[in-house]
């Protein structure tokens, strides 16, 4: 239906051009930091000091990347952020899988097997999405100590699972609420049990929400800094903490190109996820906020 009245007067054409100009200007604003980061990360130090922020590198080099990965100092050690990059994966992957699985089962139980008080239970759990984590930091530190998990990867995984469940449960609950209950009721009459129904009926239709949940949790946990800095040890730091240490380590000359390369390395996994699955990323962000 192209019945929006559009007059092609010169004035309208000018307006159209202004519109595109504004949009492109905005795009440049969002792109600027990434472009500058990338350019700085492949310039030698002399060029950084002499040239402008946006100047193209005259002698592009990947040395800053290599240094950021394997040699740069993060606090007392000078082993780069490569090890911490893998640390982050070692924390993120189990935490994402466990919290998504628990969230899926919770959402299923809360929607298809309602019982007295299940809505109240959901409301109580949902509150975990909103608390400022500062309010649990100190007790958590002490509890991790009691459990013998202080400064360990397992401890960080536990923390991320515990505070991720609220979100994953919300995702799956809101998704499964739309699955017709007659379907599950029929399966119950046929004698199928709780897990069988989940496996055979709910899980096969869950692909979209699984992707949303995995991406949301991956981004959240990868980007986490607060838990990482509060509960990790020297060997178990996630990459965000290592990046912050690297940037704030002041030994000798400040190597901006290495800082930027390290920032790019820390940013790459979530950027890749965003580029590959942006649609689902947006859906996770808006889940529950637009629908209310």
């Amino acid at each position, binding site marked *: 239906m192209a019945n929006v009245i559009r007059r092609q007067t010169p004035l309208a054409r000018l307006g159209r051009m202004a519109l595109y100009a504004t949009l492109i200007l905005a795009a440049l604003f969002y792109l600027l930091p990434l472009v500058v980061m990338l350019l700085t990360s492949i310039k030698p130090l002399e060029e950084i000091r002499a040239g402008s922020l*946006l100047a193209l590198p005259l002698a592009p080099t990947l040395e800053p990347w290599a240094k950021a990965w394997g040699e740069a100092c993060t606090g007392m050690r000078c082993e780069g952020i490569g090890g911490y990059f893998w640390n982050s994966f070692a924390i993120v992957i189990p935490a994402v899988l466990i919290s998504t699985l628990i969230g899926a089962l919770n959402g299923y139980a809360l929607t298809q097997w309602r019982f007295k008080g299940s809505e109240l239970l959901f409301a*109580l759990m949902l509150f975990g999405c909103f608390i400022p984590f500062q309010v649990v930091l100190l007790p958590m530190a002490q509890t991790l100590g009691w459990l013998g998990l202080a400064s360990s990867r397992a401890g960080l995984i536990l923390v991320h699972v515990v505070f991720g469940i609220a979100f994953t449960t919300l995702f799956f609950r809101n998704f499964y609420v739309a699955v017709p209950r007659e379907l599950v009721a029929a399966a119950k009459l046929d004698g199928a049990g709780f897990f069988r129904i989940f496996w055979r009926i709910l899980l096969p239709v869950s692909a979209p929400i699984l992707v949303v949940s995995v991406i949301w949790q991956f981004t959240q946990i990868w980007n986490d800094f607060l838990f990482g800095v509060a509960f990790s040890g020297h060997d178990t730091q996630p990459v965000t903490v290592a990046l912050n240490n690297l940037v704030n380590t002041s030994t000798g000359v400040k190597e901006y190109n290495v800082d930027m390369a390290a920032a790019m390395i*820390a940013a790459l996994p979530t950027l890749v996820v965003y580029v590959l699955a942006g649609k689902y990323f947006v859906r996770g962000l808006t889940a529950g906020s637009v629908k209310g």
Partner: protein
Amino acid sequence: MPLSLSTSREVGRPAAARPTPAARLQAWLPRLVLAPSAAVSLCFVYGFMLWTFVLSLTNSRMLPSYDFVGFAQYARLMANDRWWVASTNLVLFGGLFIAICLVLGALLAILLDQRIRQEGALRTLYLYPMALSFIVTGVAWKWLLNPSLGLEAMVRGWGFEGFRFDWLVNPDMAVYTLVIAAVWQASGFVMALFLAGLRGIDDSIIKAAQLDGASLPRIYWRVVLPCLRPVVFSAVMILAHIAIKSFDLVVALTGGGPGYASDLPATFMYAHAFNRAQIGLGSASAMLMLGGVLAILVPYLYSELRSRKHG
């Protein structure tokens, strides 16, 4: 008991009146599955909140102690200059951050809604910062705002010798650098929220207004934006939430400095509880942060529930 079990096996099917253990287990299974999560949320969310509250009533310093001093830590907090700087900064930062994100997000969404070519690509560009860690954002902007080598130097290099943009090292302006970086990161997200809202509005309303001869800006201001009230509402809630929790951005961009000029409550809490051996005071500040979140959340949830009942 074993006897009755064997007879039931002989009969071949259990009496309908009495559920078998297996059936009873099935009936309880949903509750059993939810139990661990409920227990975890009870302990780790509600229990820990209570625990932090208890700590805030003690004179804990380096280690938690349980010598109760009543609300003395809250009184100390109220008398603490750094806390007031942090709280004032939060109001400034939060207010500006929310306002600019809303205006920019709404504007970009409306502009993008004009049948733009390459809309998808532009949307992707506007939104990608949201995928980054606030630490990465902070590191990137710290470099851009570096007075001697960043944007200031670049503009001077273009010939504007008198150009000054040293907010990062200026105690009066450092908090605004947080606004810039946070807006950069989150405004695309607000745009996505508004765009989704705009796409949900019935075209016929706009067409009717157009036939009445209303101009496009007027239509948006008087007809479309009022329809987007719920979007504004949720955006404000999410942004306020981000603002109160802002910790990583401050750490990476300004480090709370110069001095403590750009401290926020989140960094205040962390510094006192973990670095300055002031667990009692840190706990008190954490409780006030929780109070801040509740003050935003409760009215929101209340109106949500009410509108759901009426709608």
